[in-house]
């Protein structure tokens, strides 16, 4: 039986592979364009732009300077290009995960049935070993950025979905009742009340999504995504621990930059929390 399933999958992937590939083509083009942009732009421009984005999002001198130093060190240790590649795909993956995941989380928070239906899917996404679907995905799409992106997004999306759902469900009933009493539409309630009030939890979801995305850098490199993952693997087979640690630290640095920036941005949206301290 196993064999027939395997055969059928092969037949399916041969029949549909191209169609699916074409479907993803624009995304692939975008990914390639973005990667090239980051790599081919002179490093100091990229550095300046990244630091500027971090500054405008976080408004935190500490985080901005930290980012600057981290990127300089990455350059000094010769990991600039790999870092840019990883930065490019991870940025897209994180944004995609958030952009797709949040609406799903919101939908889940509105219906217990939907929650019951989606939860097991999320469980599968998080615990089905990526090794299991690595090869089927590659058979369908070849190796490269698109399968890499899929693998990362599959793994990184569940936390934001779950925590958006949780956050919204925990919003104070009294406040929601008030919003209802003024005739807020579903959308207004969402944007004006539920999302702002669940922001701390949603930000925890974003944090975890960023962490998960970066945790998958190495796995993505198993299926052809260039970047910091490969040097890590090479370091292992060659037992160059320092190289492994350096590239690992570059990954961590990206994670921390993403995380601190998004968290600082989230904090700025929640000024009312500080206000209540005596």
């Amino acid at each position, binding site marked *: 039986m196993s064999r027939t399933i395997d055969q059928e999958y*092969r037949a399916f*992937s*041969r029949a549909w*592979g191209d169609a699916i590939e074409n479907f993803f083509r624009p995304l692939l083009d975008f990914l390639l364009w973005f990667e090239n942009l980051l790599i081919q732009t002179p490093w100091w421009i990229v550095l300046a732009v990244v630091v500027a984005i971090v500054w405008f999002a976080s408004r935190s001198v500490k985080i901005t300077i930290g980012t600057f130093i981290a990127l300089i060190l990455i350059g000094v240790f010769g990991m600039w290009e790999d870092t840019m590649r990883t930065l490019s795909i991870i940025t897209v993956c994180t944004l995609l995960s958030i952009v797709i995941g949040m609406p799903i989380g919101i939908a889940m928070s509105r219906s217990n049935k939907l929650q019951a239906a989606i939860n097991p899917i999320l469980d599968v996404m998080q615990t089905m070993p990526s090794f299991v679907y*690595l*090869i089927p995905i*590659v*058979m*369908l*799409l*070849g*190796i*490269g950025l698109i399968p890499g992106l899929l693998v990362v997004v599959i793994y990184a999306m569940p936390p934001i979905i779950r925590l958006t759902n949780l956050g919204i469900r925990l919003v104070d009933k009294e406040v929601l009742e008030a919003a209802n009493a003024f005739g807020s539409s579903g959308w207004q309630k969402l944007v004006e009340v539920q999302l702002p009030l669940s922001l701390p939890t949603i930000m925890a979801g974003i944090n975890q999504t960023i962490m998960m995305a970066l945790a998958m850098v190495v796995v993505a*490199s*198993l*299926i*052809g*995504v*260039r970047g910091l*993952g*490969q040097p890590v*693997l*090479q370091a*292992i*087979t*060659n*037992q*160059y621990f*320092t*190289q492994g640690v350096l590239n690992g630290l570059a990954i961590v640095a990206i994670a921390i930059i993403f995380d601190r920036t998004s968290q600082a941005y989230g904090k700025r949206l929640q000024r009312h929390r500080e206000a209540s301290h005596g």
Partner: protein
Amino acid sequence: QDSCNVTISNMNWASAEVMAAIDKIVLEEGYGCTASLVPGDTMPTFASMTEKEEPDVAPEMWVNQFREQIDKAVDEGKVSYGSEVLSDGGEEGFWIPQYMADEHPEIKTVEDAFSHPELFPSKEDPSKGAFYNCPAGWGCQITSANLFKAFKAGDKGFVLVDTGSAAGLDGSIANAYEKKEPWFGYYWAPTAILGKYPMKKLDFGVPHDDAEWQKCTTVADCADPKKNAWTKSEVFTIVTPKIEKMSNGVKDYLTKRAWANDTVNKLLAWKEDNQATGEDTAYHFLENNEDIWSKWVTPEAAEKIKEAL
């Protein structure tokens, strides 16, 4: 050349990494191709080559690991063999660290080692000897297990330790080596590890018996495995039909170039000493071993490459 666009799989072990880098330099400088390296693990890369014809070249495939599938793919015309890149073949076998060999000169063969479980105590159950198996899923896992059985190692007080992965296996060697503890298990050459941790390959005491090898030694759950020995392990370059169809010498290069273990070992030792990248090592090789590589390429290409260096 107008449409010479080659993607080369860049595997993550040292010899493959270096060969991929050499291929890239040679194809770009010598044949005017655009070559790019694509990272990837063996199996995803292989699956992608058979199903999507990309990447075009996998410089170093240890075909024993999954011979059945490669043969099938070759039959279907999905991929084809290029050169046998390690001309001496890989060396597989059961090894002990050099210091063990020095300390116990009496251990010369696999049989000897298996008769002394007390010399290789297992961490989990020190009353047993530990034999470190080949990583999970590799062809050698079955082979080793069958040989383990053939040598009646279980009865002699050994247990088969699952190492899980090359990383696990490497780690176990490093762990033993740093503490000068006993170690006994499957390994292969040429590898960076063997450059770093000198080991001694034990003799199987029997010659390679190909019929038995096909019938039983490499077959999972073979009821009654016999003692047997590895022959050289074949390591090939695998290419896609796209390369097959190329007429500009690229195909010739990829079906010709090969190097001896000696060369590889030296190169890897240099790489290790300098903690160099694959690319650095490739340049090092091209600069110092013109005699070797110039035979792989057309004279015009050789000129261009030399110029580029």
